[in-house]
């Protein structure tokens, strides 16, 4: 046993009956085995009375130390500050009355029910194990008024009281929630703000509805009573037990309703069958007698104070509720707009289903670190399907820049999805060796042949030239100094790989394309080099970019350096921040992108032809108009397609866009649907205002930093879904037509030309494939140096 304690909270009670003296005080602790996944962390509850005074002392100290984690703690900082658990405590409590242990990964969901502000009831939590076979767990009540760590934190919070912060009310359960959220993926459900799902599948997250909640509660209400009592058939409290559990749903309903109106809220409370029952039978002596029961009193008090309670609670949840309502309303009108914009005047066969719209528009479940870790088993092998992982990435993206560092290694297939941790370590070793061999090759090569020598020198010149002028607004590339820092800053100043927000530190005035470029660069700066470009690169990150490109040049000697490749490498290196790994990520990205850079331009031409056909099929009006503008060749898409929109979006947005493309979730050429979405979104202004080739080019060249990529991604997905439907619809129609005209029409009437149906286009057919389209450059000859 090497478990370490990372959380401890004292004065957590179970209430076996409604009599206060029956309450059992205890501790919640969470321990972790440093050699195992966070998912395997254990949560214990055990009663105080099972422990001796030494153990109690130990735990009370632990409560103060681990009972109030800071909200900004990360799972790593949690672990590093952890200390070894006094094992005797765990041994002593094993098997004692009511104590229990659950593994984090075995939990399905949790309820965090905040206390009433008026103090009528304690805050409580309910743990719902994943497998119904597990024994049901009692409700745990947090007696905040007697818990030292909670009281300390409350005091601290009151000192820094901010009347305008409308967050959740603080109580002991919040501390547990903070720690849990660092260990597992904890997601609040929309239907009940107190109900949280643990490591939920995307399916569950998307579809968890009021009905699910109700089903869940009725199914599990058999297992536990809301008061935490072991089931007691004798008690007449059947109704009341149910009542108390429904009370919570009413309360949550009310919380949501507060955004509506007070009147509505009151109506909601008064109309509830349980409230009506009490009111109707108020003069019934039996009921009145029943109401004298302390438990019933408690519930009544709940309602007497309901309005005060609600008024106060609503302060805290109003924002939440408002946001929820707003989200939903927005969602509704957004959906209507999308359906109008993209559904066109189509027959039912190819319109969007409710389910499709749900899936596409719900993009609020990013891949968090906790979620990512929950995907892997103890050997670091993926335990879910790649489809599920990609679903998360496609529909929610990767949560932070830091997590991308790991995820991109899989997305770019450096690591096989089914590899184990050991295998990946092995791969790292091999890749390092191979990289160094290639790097050594160009660093030491000499040429007999003058022309080869010229070629290589020209390649070096081109690479340096572009590295010097690429993404220089990004923090790490900005200063041409040996440490990459501005020369006047203190060298001792610590610098993190990523700043606090996890976003790259990029000049606000970024505008990397046009008139205003570089106005924020002080021309007097020491790092501003003379125009002739004859300055040497000192910034370590720029040196690495150039080295990677040079190594790639000998690794793939036929292609040569082509402008745009630096654009592709720079975000990868920014994220991966390791020369060897960035090189291999770049190699795999280039497998996909090499077709864009071919000497004869056939690959990019193919994509532009595909775009033209796709546009004809999906946006016929725009397609007609572009023809009139002499722009049917879609030349204005060239830059966007060549470097995957790198020049049109902010640096951090590009990371979000590319990782979605890399999933090949629908199509290996999803970038074309993104392009189509840009065309679709802009088609109205284009049709209404532009009528010349140059106007169209100018319009698209100036789009950078004006587009909302998330909206475009939603449109892209809907466009793909519609495209897929249209294609299969046409196929079905053609099959029908074939069977109508007899068994073998091509034999009888060989002269009927095949109609120009899009399903016959090999370009469009290829869009339905998830298989990577690869075109390699021809062998380089001496005169193909371009």
């Amino acid at each position, binding site marked *: 046993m090497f478990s370490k304690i990372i959380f401890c909270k004292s004065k957590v009670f179970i209430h076996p009956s409604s009599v206060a003296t029956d309450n059992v005080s205890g501790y919640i602790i969470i321990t972790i085995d440093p050699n195992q996944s966070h998912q395997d962390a254990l949560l214990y509850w055990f009663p105080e009375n099972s422990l001796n005074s030494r153990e109690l002392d130990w735990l009370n100290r632990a409560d103060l130390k681990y009972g109030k984690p800071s909200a900004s703690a990360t799972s790593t900082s949690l672990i590093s500050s952890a200390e070894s658990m006094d094992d005797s405590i765990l041994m002593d409590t094993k098997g004692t009355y009511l104590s229990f242990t659950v593994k984090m990964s075995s939990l399905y969901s949790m309820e965090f029910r905040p206390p009433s502000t008026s103090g009528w009831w304690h805050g409580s939590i309910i743990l719902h194990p994943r497998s119904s076979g597990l024994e049901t767990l009692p409700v745990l009540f947090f007696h905040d008024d007697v818990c030292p760590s909670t009281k300390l934190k409350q005091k601290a919070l009151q000192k820094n009281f901010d009347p305008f912060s409308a967050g959740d009310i603080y109580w002991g359960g919040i501390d547990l929630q903070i720690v849990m959220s660092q260990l597992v993926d904890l997601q609040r459900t929309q239907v009940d703000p107190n109900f949280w799902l643990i490591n939920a599948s995307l399916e569950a997250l998307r579809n968890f509805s009021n009905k699910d909640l109700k089903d869940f509660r009725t199914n599990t209400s058999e297992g536990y009573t809301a008061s935490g009592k072991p089931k007691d058939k004798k008690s007449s409290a059947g109704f009341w037990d149910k009542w108390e559990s429904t009370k919570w749903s009413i309360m949550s309903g009310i919380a949501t309703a507060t955004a509506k109106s007070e009147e509505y809220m009151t109506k909601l409370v008064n109309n509830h069958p349980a409230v009506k029952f009490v009111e109707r039978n108020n003069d019934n002596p039996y009921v009145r007698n029943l109401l004298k029961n302390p438990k019933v009193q408690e519930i009544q008090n709940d309602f007497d104070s309901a309005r005060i309670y609600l008024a106060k609670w609503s302060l805290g949840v109003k924002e939440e509720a408002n946001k929820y309502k707003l989200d939903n309303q927005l969602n509704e009108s957004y959906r209507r707009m999308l359906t109008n914009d993209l559904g066109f005047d189509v027959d039912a066969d190819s319109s969007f289903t409710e389910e499709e719209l749900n899936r596409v528009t719900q993009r609020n479940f990013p891949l968090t670190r906790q979620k990512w870790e929950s995907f892997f088993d103890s050997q670091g092998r993926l335990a879910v399907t790649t489809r599920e992982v990609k679903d998360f990435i496609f529909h929610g993206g990767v949560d932070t820049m830091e997590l991308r560092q790991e995820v991109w290694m899989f997305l770019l297939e450096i690591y096989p999805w089914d590899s184990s941790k050991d295998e990946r370590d092995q791969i790292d070793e091999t890749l390092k060796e191979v990289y160094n061999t290639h790097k050594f090759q160009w660093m030491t090569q000499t040429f007999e042949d003058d022309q080869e020598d010229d070629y290589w020198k020209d390649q070096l010149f081109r690479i340096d030239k572009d590295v010097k*002028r690429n993404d220089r607004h990004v923090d790490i590339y900005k200063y041409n100094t040996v440490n990459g820092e501005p020369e006047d800053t203190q060298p001792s100043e610590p610098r993190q790989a990523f700043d606090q927000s996890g976003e790259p530190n990029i000049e606000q005035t970024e505008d990397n394309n046009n008139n205003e470029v*570089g*106005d924020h*660069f002080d021309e007097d700066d020491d790092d501003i080099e003379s*125009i002739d470009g004859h300055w040497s690169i000192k910034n370590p990150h720029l040196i690495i970019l150039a080295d990677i490109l040079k190594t790639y040049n000998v690794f793939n000697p036929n292609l040569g350096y082509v402008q*745009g490749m630096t654009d592709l490498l720079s975000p990868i290196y920014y994220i991966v921040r390791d020369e060897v790994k960035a090189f291999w990520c770049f190699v795999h990205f280039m497998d996909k992108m090499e077709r864009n850079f071919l000497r004869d331009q056939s690959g990019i031409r193919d994509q532009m032809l595909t775009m033209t056909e796709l546009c004809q099929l999906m946006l016929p009006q725009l397609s007609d108009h572009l023809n009139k503008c002499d722009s049917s060749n879609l030349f204005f898409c060239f830059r966007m397609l060549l470097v995957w929109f790198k020049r049109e979006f902010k640096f951090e947005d590009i990371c979000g866009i590319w990782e979605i493309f890399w999933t090949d979730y629908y199509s290996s050429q999803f970038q074309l649907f993104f392009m189509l979405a840009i065309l679709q979104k802009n088609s109205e202004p284009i049709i209404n205002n532009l009528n010349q080739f140059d106007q169209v080019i100018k319009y698209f060249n100036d789009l950078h930093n004006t587009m909302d990529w998330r909206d475009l991604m939603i449109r892209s997905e809907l466009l793909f879904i519609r495209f897929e439907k249209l294609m299969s619809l046409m196929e079905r129609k053609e099959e029908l037509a074939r069977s109508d005209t007899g068994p073998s029409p091509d034999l009888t009437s060989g002269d009927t030309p095949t109609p120009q149906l899009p399903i016959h286009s090999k370009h469009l057919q290829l869009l339905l494939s998830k298989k990577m389209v690869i075109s390699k450059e021809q062998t380089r000859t001496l005169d193909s140096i371009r």
Partner: protein
Amino acid sequence: MSTRKKNILKVIILGDSGVGKTSLMHRYVNDKYSQQYKATIGADFLTKEVNIDSDKVATMQVWDTAGQERFQSLGVAFYRGADCCVLVYDVTNTKSFQSIKSWRDEFLVHANVSSPETFPFVLLGNKIDADDSKKVVSNKDAQDLAASLGNIPLFFTSAKTAINVDTAFQEIARSALQQNQNDADAFEDDFNDAINIQLDNDTNSCSC
């Protein structure tokens, strides 16, 4: 579409990557300079009102292009209708100077100009502000090249320090306007020819 835009002068800037095409365009149009222009991908243009010989006003459309040769094959659409082509090399880079001739040929092949012999080119040797030690293309060589290309005008410029940029573009504008008017006249002739043919046909059909 062949709609004539007589009042727009279309100028194309060509040359190897990194010679300063984008910088020259921005210096001329916006009088600005930055180190941070990324490598141009595709093509872009800026427009500027110009006074020529103090009595004519026109709108000049300056097209900036990618220097990477392989991108040219796709982007030739915007060569069409050009009134002047600016060839740029870097005085500190011999290779860029050697490429000038092929840039001109490339342009003539794709632009489909009416009379290649008289089409106006202007040659610019950029980065003249660089240290003399860095300059590798002699003025003599540049003058010889300009002469061999049909005595085209030659300017030594610096987009960074704005040396000669306005002067060069004044000349570019003048050549472009001249070319534009020649073309317009030729177009006028074509148009008349077309009418004549039409009339011929009519007479033929009448005599039937």
